[in-house]
């Protein structure tokens, strides 16, 4: 099993009563609520926390892209990744961007270039996630959600071809047309940087990732849904002749370790409450703007994710394995159970939530690295013994 620390880099100082005044902390939540002086401190604290995880032996440190929200302050994840690459020089740590929101970009060749630069500078340590961006971002960025999936696929094709085929060549698509694709630099990894597909569980994405052998990472979903989605990935991989599907699966829960279960709950829950019930929620028309998903896909995603309108409580988070919280013993036990049920290679952990203090975040990172990772690294999954088998 491989371990990754993930950070949202939120701005956790929400306007009092913002829920009554605005539809959510996305799209139209006034940016007068952002204090750049506070933000200056936050960026540096957050980046240090991820570097700390790298120093303690996490296999990777990972970031993502969001726009016009206090939920996550990495509208350009590649900028943060560039800093993480430089701060982890000489370490084996991967730097994962989970991911670049391709349909929101005007020119995919620019994405190919930036990631190739990062891959070369880091000496081949980049994990390149590709995502569509969440629905709210289509309101923010003026990109027509009806074109989202087609733009995503075509931008992906441009980027992977630019990375892996000798230039110059021409590319003729519906959205992107180039007379000369000839990307300098070429990426360090051959044929291209490791590609991940983080998703909320759209069936089309699962199949798309499986067909290409990309690592599929399931974000925030009840474990029963994750079991089902992972099996769909395995079925699709078998159909396309992709070997070792479990080694291409990733799961992303929040993980928090403290001295005791009670202490972990006390420290974690107020911050998880802020995340799940304040920073994250969006009304339906922002999560799923018209045409963002096919009607059929939307129904499936809604069914998999459960009632999005309902506020989340700690018991629910724990019982569906969305949050793995407690003493080291409890956390190891739950992660082993989850690994037995799911069978995956990549564990992407949300190590910080809401307004969790720097001290508690670093404690959490340290405990995961020292108490959890050594115990779990070679855990063999009952679902698929291939993942966790001691490496030859």
């Amino acid at each position, binding site marked *: 099993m491989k371990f990754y620390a993930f950070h949202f880099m939120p701005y956790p100082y929400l306007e009092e009563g913002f829920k009554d005044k605005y*539809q959510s902390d996305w799209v*139209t939540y006034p940016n007068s609520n952002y204090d750049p002086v506070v933000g200056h401190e936050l960026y540096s604290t957050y980046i240090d926390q991820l570097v700390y995880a790298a120093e303690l032996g996490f296999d990777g440190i990972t970031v993502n892209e969001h726009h016009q929200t206090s939920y996550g302050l990495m509208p350009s994840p590649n900028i943060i990744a560039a800093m993480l690459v430089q701060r982890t020089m000489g370490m084996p740590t991967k730097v994962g961007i989970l991911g670049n929101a391709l349909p929101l970009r005007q020119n995919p060749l620019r994405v190919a270039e930036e990631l190739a630069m990062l891959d070369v500078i880091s000496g081949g340590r980049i994990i390149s996630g590709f995502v569509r961006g969440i629905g709210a971002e289509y*309101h923010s960025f*003026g990109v027509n959600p*009806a074109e989202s999936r087609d733009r995503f696929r075509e931008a992906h094709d441009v980027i992977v071809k630019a990375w892996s085929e000798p230039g110059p060549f021409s590319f003729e698509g519906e959205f992107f047309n180039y007379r000369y694709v000839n990307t300098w630099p070429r990426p360090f990894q051959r044929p291209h940087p490791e590609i991940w597909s983080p998703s909320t569980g759209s069936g089309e994405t699962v199949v798309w990732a499986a067909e290409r052998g990309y690592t599929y990472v399931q974000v925030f979903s009840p474990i029963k849904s994750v079991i089902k989605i992972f099996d769909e990935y395995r079925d699709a991989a078998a159909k396309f002749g992709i070997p070792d599907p479990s080694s291409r699966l990733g799961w992303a829960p929040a993980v928090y370790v403290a001295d005791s279960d009670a202490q972990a709950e006390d420290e974690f829950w107020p911050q998880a409450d802020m995340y799940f019930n304040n920073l994250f929620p969006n009304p339906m028309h922002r999560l799923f*703007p*018209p*045409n963002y998903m096919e*009607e059929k896909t939307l129904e499936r995603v809604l069914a998999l994710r459960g009632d999005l309108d309902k506020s989340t409580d700690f018991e629910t988070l724990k019982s569906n394995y969305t949050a793995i919280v407690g003493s080291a013993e409890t956390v190891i036990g739950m992660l082993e159970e989850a690994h037995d049920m799911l069978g995956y290679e990549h564990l992407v952990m949300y190590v910080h939530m809401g307004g969790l203090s720097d001290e508690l975040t670093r404690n959490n990172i340290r405990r995961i690295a020292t108490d959890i990772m050594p115990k779990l690294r070679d855990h063999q999954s009952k679902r698929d013994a291939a993942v966790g088998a001691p490496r030859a």
Partner: protein
Amino acid sequence: MTTAALPGTHEVRVHGDGPDVVVLPSFVGPYWTPALEELTSSFRVHLLELPGFGDFAVPREARRVTDLATVLKVALADAGLLGASVIGHSFGGWLAIELALLAPPPKLVLVDTLGFRIKGEPRADIFDRPRETVLDLVYADRSTAPTDWEAVEDRRNVAALARYGWNPYLCDLSLVTRAAAISSPTLVVWGENDRVVPATHAQLVADAIPGAHVQLLPKAGHDPLSDDPSGFAAAVKRFLSSEER
């Protein structure tokens, strides 16, 4: 894009005696309103489903309103309705303008049409709001509105509108220039209390189309056919029946 004729003309209802008149409805959906009933004494009224909406499927590559107009032109030609006058309401108005540029009808009526913008003039966001509040924007008075809401409560109607009107918002920036090529005599009808496209747009549209006249309806919002049926029917009858341009 493909313009293969699609089966049928997607007529929701045909009624009345007299010259053919094609009605292209708003994005809310095709409803047979009292306003249309009043027109049937002088015209044979064909209420159509919009291409790209409901069951009127269009090729996936049809991403612009002019593509929809191409599909519609073929369907109307098949049905022998290309010589009919056209009433286009809201999104149907935008489509009617594109159709008039491909196949000029004898007369063109545009009702609270989409497709234009006055730069800097705020318009409400139909898409960044709960679906069930969209109709509060459309009707001056919800009590006069049709009671069958299935079509709009079904999110597919708003989705079809979003497909063509997401960005730039409910308009085509080239339309104001291209509209100069419309040769059909044109009446621009607008509800003064329109909260989707403010009535200030009426004159802009009329100025863009050679010889077009404006008729404002004080009692109406974005849907004069429901908000002021008799005012609407009287204005349209007068225009369609007159000899003058």
